[in-house]
């Protein structure tokens, strides 16, 4: 009887704290390339140079196959989000903060959903890519204006 009670109390304490460790940080779940589905366009997410993620205010992770899908989704549904991530093109599979990243739109670097859009952690990385491929570099706000046209 006593044992059961202890177990019960243990569960009561452990569960909320455990879920808090996983849930409260605003950190995204990782993208499982090859099995996850893009929230916006329904495609299987394949290319680990382009995946992007939104974490909403309830800490639920929404995954996208490309930054352009993320931007379109935000525009269409106007969700309440906590954080946004895109993939650093130079480090495939690594998520970086979308709002502080820099974006290159260049026809020579094709992205999954046809906007020729790739993301970089620093402005100089994006500039490097621009110098070799041509195109135009945007920050997050600029990108949103550009894709809205």
């Amino acid at each position: 009887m006593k044992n059961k009670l202890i177990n019960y109390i243990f569960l009561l304490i452990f569960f909320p704290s455990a879920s808090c460790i996983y849930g409260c940080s605003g950190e995204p779940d990782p993208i499982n390339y090859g099995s996850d589905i893009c929230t916006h366009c329904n495609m299987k997410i394949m290319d680990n140079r382009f995946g992007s993620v939104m974490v909403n205010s309830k800490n639920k992770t929404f995954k996208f196959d490309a930054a352009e899908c993320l931007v379109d989704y935000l525009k269409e549904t106007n969700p309440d989000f906590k954080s946004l991530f895109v993939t650093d093109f130079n480090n495939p599979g690594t998520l970086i903060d979308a709002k502080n990243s820099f974006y290159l739109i260049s026809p020579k670097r094709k992205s999954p959903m046809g906007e020729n859009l790739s993301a970089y952690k620093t402005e100089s990385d994006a500039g490097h890519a621009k110098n070799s491929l041509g195109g135009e570099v945007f920050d997050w706000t600029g990108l949103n204006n550009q894709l809205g046209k």
Partner: protein
Amino acid sequence: MIRRLFHILLLLLIPAVSYSVNDTLTVNDNLQSYFAGIVTADTVFISGGTYYVKDLRVTKQSISIIGLDNPKFDANKESEILIAEADSLLIKGITFSNTGVSFITDFAAIRVQNSTACRLIDNTVENSFFAIYLSNCSNTLVSGNRILGNSVSESFSGNGIHLWNCNKIFIFNNEICRQRDGIYLEFATNSIILGNNSYSNLRYGLHFMFSEGNKYVMNSFSQNGAGVAVMYTKKVSMINNNFFDNWGSNSYGLLFKDIDNSTVAFNKFRRNTVGIYSEGSNRLLVSKNVFIDNGWAMKILGNCYDGVFNYNEFTNNTFDLATNSSRSNNTFCYNYWDKYKGYDLGKDGIGDVPYRPVSLFSVLIENSPDAMIILNSFVVDIIDFAEKVSPAFTPETLSDEKPLMKGFSYAN
């Protein structure tokens, strides 16, 4: 009359002239150095054997490169194999293998760019990242090629036949397997995709975006990781294709996303998790298709308007139709549903009572997928029967007013 004669004479003359200047050459080795220099031959015959080549560039117009005794071009997993920028190019009977794999560039076995009137015929491509890659091409024939990939992981795989910004391409009778997407079209218009077999690809058998006015006829798409997905396009015709064995939680025989004014007819959907999944697609005509042994024959979401679904046959599917909305703006008539239990007193072959293809249980599943565990149980039969007698939860307007009494098999 004389004018017409003159035209005929002219037509006869043209081939004579072009053949008379034809210069042929047979290459046995040092292929790379031959193409690095000034190419004068109009036809280059390649003898059998293996050639190790890197980024072989072909820029001479109207050149024919023809393999005799099945020669093999091998890039030793380092680079692309053949990069062509030449109008009226012909590449025939050559095996391409072992392109490089890269995160930054899309290495292709055969890349043709900025060209028109090219022919890629009867080639084999093995172990390659991207196989055939056309960009900015038009009036081109891709026929009889065999593309045998060995993709295991998604990031290390490319597409079989990849078209970007092309017009009037004829893709005929190719076999494509184990690539990422079998056939991939982006901004490719007015093309015909006929008689291809695309199977066991990691993601999609066929995938296109922004590719208007294409026709897909008599192709077979089977056992692909996620089936076939087509999106953001108008005016598509898909006639007489087979969509078989696309199983998986996110796998679809045919996925429509924002496809408008399109026709899907005479196709056969067999053993797919979902036969047709349609989202945001308007004015579709889905007619004379056969749906057999699927999990869901169709899922038509509430944001699809003015579709017409007629003369289809639904046999042995777990669910005939699912939707996420209580309204439906699509027309269903003259379909055959094997679950229809009505009667035909007039003996005109058309049931006298409407059929409602959305069962209450499929609505339940949409809301809570875990309820799948009670599938085929007695409880489900009871609630479905209750719903049939007095519909309350299923879409009021979604019914087939004239269901057919007898099936038929168009695609057999």
